[in-house]
């Protein structure tokens, strides 16, 4: 409930409209309360007195009431929908912008699917509640109070008798809301499990087939599938109890009115019209009382939705441009790590410890070391994707924590290990960092990244849509588009996660050439897996367990005979084999050559 109250702020801008809507609602309810009274007077007065004019007047009155309440209804419904749509629009905007400002630390731990469903589903349920359900709830309250007053004023005894079955009805339906909510939660859980099973089965289809495990998988799926059935049956059983019972309680009320009211009429203490009117009021109340279940449900959903939405909105973006931030000028490209330590949330051991390194402009720095040694963590600190927990990261002597984030990141180009492209044209993807780039600039970047040729190979060239709904690019192609994207930024500092792993040799050479262009005249950090890249670096940092264990040039480190030497030698095994073989071939081919001459 607290979470629902927090929606106040969301509704604030539309307070005027909400108040107007409330008044309209009051009007509609009042009008609908009049109708049974008109019918009653028709029966008691019109029919009793035998006046046709009275009948005409009543008929016209009913018609008039119908028309006025129709107009009011129209206004009410549209206003409600309008408020709902506006609230949804505002919330989605807030969520969207907030999410894209939340730091990496947040996104590392959150499931993207959940985040998306919060923006869509949860906002929807809040919308529905704010628009329709609240109004319905208010209408029900007003209506109930109105009916109570009218009935009690008319005949206290009959009113009490007629309303008696309404008490269990309201109690039951409101209790039903929470009960069914829990049951539906179980259904959702079960469906989630089915979907997990399915996802795993489809993603791992090759493994399933390779090990001929179809039967086993079918069994596992069946367990999950049965659970869905079972949880649904629980829901149904509740439904099958509540639905007929509410209908029955309403009928019981009608019967009670007929019996007790009828006897009062016979005794002469009540009119027939009053009996009819009582019955009409009960029927009038029955509908919203039954809808109460849905309302309670909607309220519960909205409360849960609001909780989840606010959970996101309440998360402070820890990494933000500080108040009196420095707007960075064009960088020279000097980078310094001063006593840097980094410990991620929820982790016991530090990912980086005591990092001290000073890099001059335009140097190429290669980072090598085992998986998990802290290479990626180190480079992520430069564009301030994470904040250091100790020490400082300085760019041209500016602490990255004190500068304007956009002015910093605009000057840093990043090519990530997995090159994520957006479902848009290739052109838009290359221009992602600079949407205002000209076509010439885009083509130049693509050429430099060795991507132009294959792009022109598509029928639509640069307008080709890539991604999920467009052309599928190969790993190597994606990587080259990502390089072009970074190149177009003309960054002063370049960060490369050099993984050209799953591409064939020709492509690899193309990418290598593209990277060479990219690195020219910039400070470059390369997370390298390949010795050929490392050898070229001005400075090699060998990392292990979050520390820099060795540093220097290729030759220096080889002489040192430490971890670098070890890695180098392991990779050299293949080279040695290669050199040996080449020697053999040369010998044999020269032999062949000699033979031919003779």
């Amino acid at each position, binding site marked *: 409930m607290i979470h629902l109250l927090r929606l106040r702020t969301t509704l604030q801008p539309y307070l005027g409209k909400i108040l107007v809507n409330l008044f309209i609602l009051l009007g509609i309810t009042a009008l609908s309360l009049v109708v049974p009274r008109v019918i009653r007077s028709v029966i008691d007065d019109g029919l009793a007195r035998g006046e046709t004019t009275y009948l005409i007047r009543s008929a016209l009155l009913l018609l008039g009431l119908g028309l006025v309440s129709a107009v009011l209804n129209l206004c009410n419904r549209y206003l409600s929908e309008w408020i709902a749509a506006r609230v949804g629009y505002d919330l989605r905007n807030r969520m969207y912008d907030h999410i894209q400002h939340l730091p990496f630390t947040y996104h590392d731990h959150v499931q993207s699917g959940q985040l998306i469903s919060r923006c869509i589903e949860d906002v929807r349920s809040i919308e529905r509640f704010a628009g329709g359900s609240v109004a319905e709830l208010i209408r029900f309250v007003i209506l109930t109070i109105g009916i109570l007053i009218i009935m009690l004023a008319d005949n206290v005894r009959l009113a009490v008798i007629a309303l008696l079955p309404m008490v269990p009805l309201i109690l039951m339906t409101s209790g039903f809301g929470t009960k069914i909510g829990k049951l539906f939660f179980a259904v959702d859980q079960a469906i989630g499990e089915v979907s997990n099973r399915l996802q795993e089965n489809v993603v791992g289809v090759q493994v399933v087939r390779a*090990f001929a495990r179809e039967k086993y998988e079918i069994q596992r799926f069946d367990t999950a599938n049965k659970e869905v059935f079972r949880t649904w049956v629980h829901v149904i059983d509740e439904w099958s109890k509540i639905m007929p019972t509410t209908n029955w309680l309403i009928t019981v009320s009608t019967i009670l009115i007929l019996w007790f009211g009828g006897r009062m009429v016979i005794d002469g203490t009540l009119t027939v019209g009053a009996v009819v009117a009582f019955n009409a009021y009960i029927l009038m109340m029955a509908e919203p009382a039954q809808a109460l279940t849905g309302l309670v449900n909607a309220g519960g959903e909205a409360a849960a939705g609001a909780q989840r939405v606010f959970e996101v909105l309440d998360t402070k973006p820890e990494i933000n441009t500080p108040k009196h931030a420095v707007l960075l000028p064009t960088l020279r490209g000097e980078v310094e790590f001063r006593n840097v330590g980094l410990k991620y949330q929820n982790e016991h051991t530090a990912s980086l410890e005591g990092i001290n390194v000073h890099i001059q402009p335009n140097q190429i720095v290669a980072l090598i070391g085992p998986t998990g040694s802290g290479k990626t963590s180190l480079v992520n600190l430069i564009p301030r994707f994470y904040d250091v927990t100790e020490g400082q990261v300085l760019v041209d002597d500016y602490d990255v924590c004190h500068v304007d984030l956009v002015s910093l990141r605009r000057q840093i180009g990043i090519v*990530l290990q997995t090159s994520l492209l957006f479902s848009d044209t290739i052109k838009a993807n290359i221009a992602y960092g600079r949407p205002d780039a000209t076509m010439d600039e885009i083509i130049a970047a693509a050429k430099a990244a060795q991507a132009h040729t294959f792009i022109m190979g598509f029928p639509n060239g640069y307008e080709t849509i890539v991604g999920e709904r467009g052309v599928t690019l190969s790993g190597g192609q994606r990587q080259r588009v990502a390089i072009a994207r970074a190149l177009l930024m003309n960054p002063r500092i370049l960060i490369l996660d050099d993984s050209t792993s799953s591409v064939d040799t020709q492509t690899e050479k193309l990418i290598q050439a593209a990277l060479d262009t990219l690195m020219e005249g910039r400070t470059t950090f390369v997370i390298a897996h390949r010795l050929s890249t490392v050898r070229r670096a001005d400075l090699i940092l060998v990392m292990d367990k979050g520390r820099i264990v060795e540093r220097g040039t290729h030759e220096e480190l080889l002489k040192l005979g430490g971890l670098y030497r070890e890695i180098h030698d392991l990779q050299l095994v293949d080279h040695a084999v290669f050199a040996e073989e080449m020697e053999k071939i040369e010998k044999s081919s020269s032999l062949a050559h000699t033979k031919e001459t003779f």
Partner: protein
Amino acid sequence: MTRITPPAFITQSEEAYDKGYDPKVARGLLQFVKPYTRQMFISLIFMIIVTAAAVSGPYFVKLAIDEGIGKRDVSVLRNIVVAYFIVAGVQIVTNFYRVRIMSRVGQHVLYDVRTAMFDHLQKLSLSFYNRYSVGRVITRVINDVGTLREFITWAVLAIVRNLLAILGTLIAMLSLNLRLSLITFAVIPLMVLATYLYRNMARRNYRKVRAAVSWTNSVLAENVNGVRVVQAFSRQAYNFSNFKDYVNRYFLETSLDAAKVASAFTPVVDVLGAIATALVVYLGGTAVLGESITAGVLIAFVLYIDRLFDPIRDLSRRFDTLQSTMAGGERILELLNTPIEVRDAEDALEMPPIVGEVRFENVSFHYSDDPTLVLDGINLHVDAGQIVALVGETGAGKTTIVKLLARFHDPTSGCVRVDGIDLRRVTQGSLRRQMGMVLQDPFLFNGTVKENILFGRLDATDEEVIAAAKAVGAHDFIVGLKNGYETSVEEGGATLSVGQRQLISFARALLADPRILILDEATSSVDTQTEQIIQRALATLLTRRTSFVIAHRLSTITTADKIVVIHDGKIIEQGTHNELLAKQGMYYELYQTGFRE
């Protein structure tokens, strides 16, 4: 009306969604209901009883007023009230069973549909999975079956119920008074017209709303999934204004358009109801005065008007649901009717224990939806126990060769033989149980490390699991994990490194002790130390069986018994390392340029 247009792929998919009623689809879906005909019949009878009881309500009111109250006879009134009470009792009981039976049938049908889909998915060939993304499969089985639930429980049942209610009310009214009934019915054509107009407008609007939702969804999803790139390129402001002014604005405007139409409909119905009531009050009232009807009849009519309009209104809504479920139903049937490309022959034999001789005889292959040959006239003979290295560029056809060997596809022409037996003559299960496969991206299932190794052979003992892990050098890191062999790996093995996942999948393959082993050897993003371990594990894995290795590492290639060079779906060269080098052909070239760093 909005001037924003979402991208074509969004609107197109929504147009495809709006199919309208399709009898073929309905028939296809009704197939699933067939086994439950008996229950359906019973609940139909119950439904008729419930409707009759509900319709009799106003009639009891009439009787009470005319016969009991009007004639001032308490005993008659008592009888009527008691009778009404009994009818209400019958109604609650039958209603209870009707809901129960009906919804259980519904859930049974859905269970059956899901089972049928999953079973079918287990048989579909792998080329199906190239066309269908994971997301699409899940949408079929979860969302589309969800709409099917609505089709059964909300649309079909509710339509029958409403029709019965309308019919019952009409009969009741006609039997009470013909003239008054006809007057009331005069409003019905107007009602139908209003409903019809509303539905057409609403449908167009809702289609746009759905498009807006899926557009918002996809834009959001992309931004969330790519949030690191968004931040790296400082695109937040640009993306936000795009979202606010286009995507989300479109959402808002389409919702408001839909709201306009929707909010007009109910008041129109209310007005028509008011007209009908006014007519009955005036004309009925005059009739009462003229003593051609009783006051009770008049009151019953006022009550019946409500009972007539409610189901009509409801019906229009249900019909919409029915239509929107059609597309979902069609997609379900489409999946269920997707032909199974690789299936066991009727007289398929169990594959006898494999010795390991493999022969490709003139094998060509292309995918069913694309006539370009992926493999073209492959002839290959491998002796039992040999190690074969497949070499060639990406897309040359290496993977397709091993997929044909595991019979993930059948050759378009030619045949693949193991120990001289054509693979098409044996059951897939008996063949694959004797084969092992380690894929480039090792896939681990949700579950513990142990369960993942056990996947190779479910009945293996703990000792065997540990022995397999030790043999491939995985034991040391596994015992170092938080719960050792009982450590659960998250889906896809995200918590383990690539190298560790690969070692686990090696242990899995070793435990299965396959006679033929297929290995997509890629240790790309693994650090050098792990690579060393993997290298040793490979040696253990490859001994004593026929092995096909899609090789990337020089040491594997050079030590292979046979190297097969594939280019454009053809075998260009085959032989040992030295033979091929001496030839100075494509292998020689690859060797000089490609394998070098």
